[in-house]
């Protein structure tokens, strides 16, 4: 009908409008009707007729031959058989009959495969190949048959609760072949043998492996038959391998071996083992090769790895341990910390190596930093253990490291330090500062730093004011205002002295200037600077006059003060007419000047006379004479010639003195630290610490009123940062009891009471 209307619309032009209106008014519907099934209902014995044909074809396919009947025809028969519906029960049951018969054929066929697979094939590899080819044939043929019987699959199988043809085929294969314990064992053992061969380094047929494992997976036998045995054999292998190799191999070799094994197993998964086994497999390898041996690896030769700077091995170690979880990493971290403590202590503790200590510490630190960055991927926890361990060992020796770090800084900041540009200098100062950060007794550092800074500033040996200021700033950032306030005061004094000197020069213009002698003076504020011993010496008149002029000037500007000259820090420029024309200038210390000026009057002077006429204190005078007569630059001759100055030596001017420079510095002796200076600096720190201990004890007692000895000790130790011994604290307590800050309790000698 619809077709008619369309035809009319196309042909009839004028009636177009009318007719379409008309048709919409009668509302015609499109109706889809079922496809007409073939009119022929198959006869009741249709199945019996076609089955022999089908069976013949099936057997042909199953045996790998071409079907004798045309497959198209067979397909139509099956189609006909399956799609016909009828009231006749016999006809309706035909598909199920077909299915059952099909099953029977499969069943029979698969059983014919058994003898081959049960026969003796000694070579397990050959056996696997046979199995593989049977499986492959089975697959190809199953597919062909499924295609042929696809109508059965889509009609009967859909409604009846039976497996489809493909599954049926697989089920049968599984049941008869792979669930046969002999075949299954031979197959699985064969596979395991191949894997073992590959693990030994031989090449195997990976495609064969892959196919058969695929087969096991397809037949749902992988998890049951293969995987447990595979994992078990893996476990056994690596368990033994781990135990023997950790004994025989060197650690770095062992580590790379483990790395290689892991890589191989991962490849194995990629190549043929199923992904689902990955976690378990890798876990087994990690457990047996790494986790079980962590302690042994660390105790065995971890230290040697670090000693020998084997960054790559340690990096591998870290990566491997990281796989096994936090425990291994913790152990590694501890081992790293212990290494630092043990080896660092060696650097610090040896008295004979003091001059190299700081350099070695810097080197050690740099090396360890390298490990943290390169091997431990800058893991924060490793950075922390590095710091903690450094702090631990560097404080194992009290005071000396702090002193030596201060001196190292001094050496870098002095003039004549040619090693560095400004940037390099900054860098090395930063590094030294890092070491300084680990030191508990910062007061020792401060004392020595201050002493050296004073010399640099006063004797004019500071390499650069900028570097000095930047170091000061660093210390300030590190330790706060109070720590550096005195150091800043020193800089302030130097600035102030410059102002004073400009004023002084103007002042000199108005007064009679002493015969062309230049003069500059640094005026120090007592509290900022290290305390210097007051020494006396007899000065020649020109010196006295200069000092007087300056003192008068200074006191006129600042009332209520007095000036004390520090002879050990004074230095002079001397002009010497050696021969006819050779004029030289010498930078000398005041003491050196005093000695040299004596030779204007006499040619030969004995030690005793020098001592008599200058009154320089004994050790200083000896040092001064030594610097003039026994150093590199010899202005004086000494009789007898020797390295040490004795009290009956005779001195004379070295008239044959020659030097290529005009201006010569021989006052380095002033910069050198004398043993007395060193001990007095340390002594002062000790005194300061006594005061701090006293203060801490009094503070604690004031809050607690009564406290047992043990408790008091514990509190004191927790409050004070520097290393202190119990005996010192005990002495301080005794002293405080004596001074009546506290007393022993009347009831118990072990309890103290605060005295208000």
């Amino acid at each position, binding site marked *: 009908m619809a077709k008619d209307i369309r035809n009319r619309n196309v042909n009839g032009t004028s009636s177009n409008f009318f007719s379409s209106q008309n048709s919409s008014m009668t509302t015609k519907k499109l109706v889809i009707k079922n496809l007409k099934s073939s009119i022929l209902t198959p006869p009741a014995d249709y199945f019996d007729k076609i089955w022999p044909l089908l069976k013949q074809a099936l057997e042909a396919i199953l045996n790998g031959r071409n079907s004798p009947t045309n497959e198209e025809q067979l397909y139509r028969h099956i189609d006909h058989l399956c799609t016909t519906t009828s009231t006749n029960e016999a006809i309706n049951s035909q598909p199920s009959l077909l299915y059952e018969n099909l099953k029977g054929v499969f069943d029979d066929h698969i059983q014919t495969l058994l003898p081959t697979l049960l026969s003796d094939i000694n070579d397990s590899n050959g056996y696997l190949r046979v199995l593989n080819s049977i499986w492959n044939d089975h697959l190809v043929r199953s597919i062909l048959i499924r295609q042929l019987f696809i109508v059965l699959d889509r009609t009967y199988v859909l409604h009846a609760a039976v497996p489809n043809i493909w599954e049926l085929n697989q089920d049968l294969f599984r049941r008869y072949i792979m669930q046969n314990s002999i075949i299954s064992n031979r197959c699985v053992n064969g596979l395991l043998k191949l894997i073992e061969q590959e693990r030994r380094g031989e090449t195997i047929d990976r495609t064969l492996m892959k196919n058969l494992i695929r087969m096991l997976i397809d037949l749902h036998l992988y998890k049951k038959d293969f995987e447990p045995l595979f994992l078990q054999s893996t476990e056994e292998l690596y368990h033994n391998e781990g135990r023997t190799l950790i004994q025989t191999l060197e650690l770095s070799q062992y580590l790379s071996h483990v790395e290689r094994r892991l890589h191989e197993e991962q490849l194995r998964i990629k190549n043929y083992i199923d992904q689902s086994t990955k976690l378990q497999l890798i876990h087994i390898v990690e457990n047996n090769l790494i986790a079980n041996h962590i302690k042994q690896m660390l105790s065995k030769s971890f230290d040697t790895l670090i000693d020998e700077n084997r960054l790559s091995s340690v990096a591998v170690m870290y990566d491997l341990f990281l796989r096994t979880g936090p425990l291994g990493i913790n152990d590694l971290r501890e081992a790293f910390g212990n290494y630092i403590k043990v080896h660092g202590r060696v650097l610090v503790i040896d008295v004979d190596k003091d001059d190299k200590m700081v350099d070695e510490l810097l080197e050690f630190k740099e090396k360890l930093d390298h490990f943290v960055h390169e091997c431990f991927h800058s893991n924060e926890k490793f950075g922390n253990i590095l710091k903690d361990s450094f702090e631990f060992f560097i404080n194992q020796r009290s005071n000396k490291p702090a002193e030596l770090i201060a001196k190292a800084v001094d050496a870098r900041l002095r003039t004549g330090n040619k090693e560095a540009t400004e940037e390099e200098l900054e860098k090395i100062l930063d590094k030294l500062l890092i070491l300084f950060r680990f030191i508990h007794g910062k007061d020792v550092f401060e004392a020595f730093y201050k002493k050296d800074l004073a010399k640099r500033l006063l004797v004019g040996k500071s390499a650069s004011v900028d570097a000095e200021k930047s170091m000061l700033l660093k210390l300030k950032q590190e330790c706060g205002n109070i720590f550096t306030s005195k150091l800043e005061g020193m800089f302030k004094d130097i600035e102030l002295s410059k102002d004073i000197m400009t004023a002084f020069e103007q002042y000199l213009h108005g007064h009679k200037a002493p015969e062309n002698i230049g003069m500059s003076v640094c005026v120090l504020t007592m509290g900022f600077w290290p305390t210097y011993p007051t020494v006396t010496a007899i000065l020649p008149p020109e010196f006295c006059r200069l000092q007087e002029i300056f003192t008068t000037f200074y006191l006129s500007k600042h009332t*209520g003060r007095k000036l004390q000259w520090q002879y050990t820090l004074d230095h*002079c420029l001397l*002009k010497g007419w050696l021969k006819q024309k050779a004029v030289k200038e010498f930078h000398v210390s005041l003491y050196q000047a005093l000695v040299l000026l004596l030779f204007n009057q006499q040619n030969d002077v004995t030690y005793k006379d020098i001592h008599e006429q200058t009154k320089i204190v004994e050790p200083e005078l000896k040092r001064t004479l030594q610097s003039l007569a026994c150093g590199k630059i010899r202005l004086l001759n000494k009789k007898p010639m020797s390295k040490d100055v004795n009290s009956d030596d005779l001195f004379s*001017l070295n008239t044959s003195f020659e030097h290529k420079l005009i201006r010569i510095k021989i006052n380095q002796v002033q910069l050198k630290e004398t043993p007395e200076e060193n001990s007095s600096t340390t002594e002062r720190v000790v005194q300061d610490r006594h005061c701090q201990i006293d203060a801490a004890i009094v503070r604690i007692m004031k809050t607690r009123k009564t406290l047992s000895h043990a408790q008091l000790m514990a509190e004191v130790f927790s409050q004070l940062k520097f290393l202190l011994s119990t005996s010192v604290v005990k002495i301080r307590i005794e002293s405080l009891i004596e001074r009546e800050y506290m007393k022993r309790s009347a009831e118990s000698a072990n309890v103290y009471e605060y005295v208000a």
Partner: protein
Amino acid sequence: MRIRLKEFNGVAVWKWVTNDDSCGICRMQFDASCSECRYPGDQCPVLHGECRHCFHEHCIMKWINAQQTNKLCPMCRGEWKSLP
């Protein structure tokens, strides 16, 4: 051979002229500053009284200004008159 002094670079330490080591009020050494100042210097000199006692200027002025009636030396309770 003749040797002559050409230049003299001296170092001197200044101290307050006092009769005592430390200030009787703040107990700080005179060589250090009083508790209010960061540095010792002319902003806070040492004042001497007629009674021969001396104090940081800041310390004694604070004391004197706190006194209601008579200005007394905190050490000897005599009348405080500072020497020029």
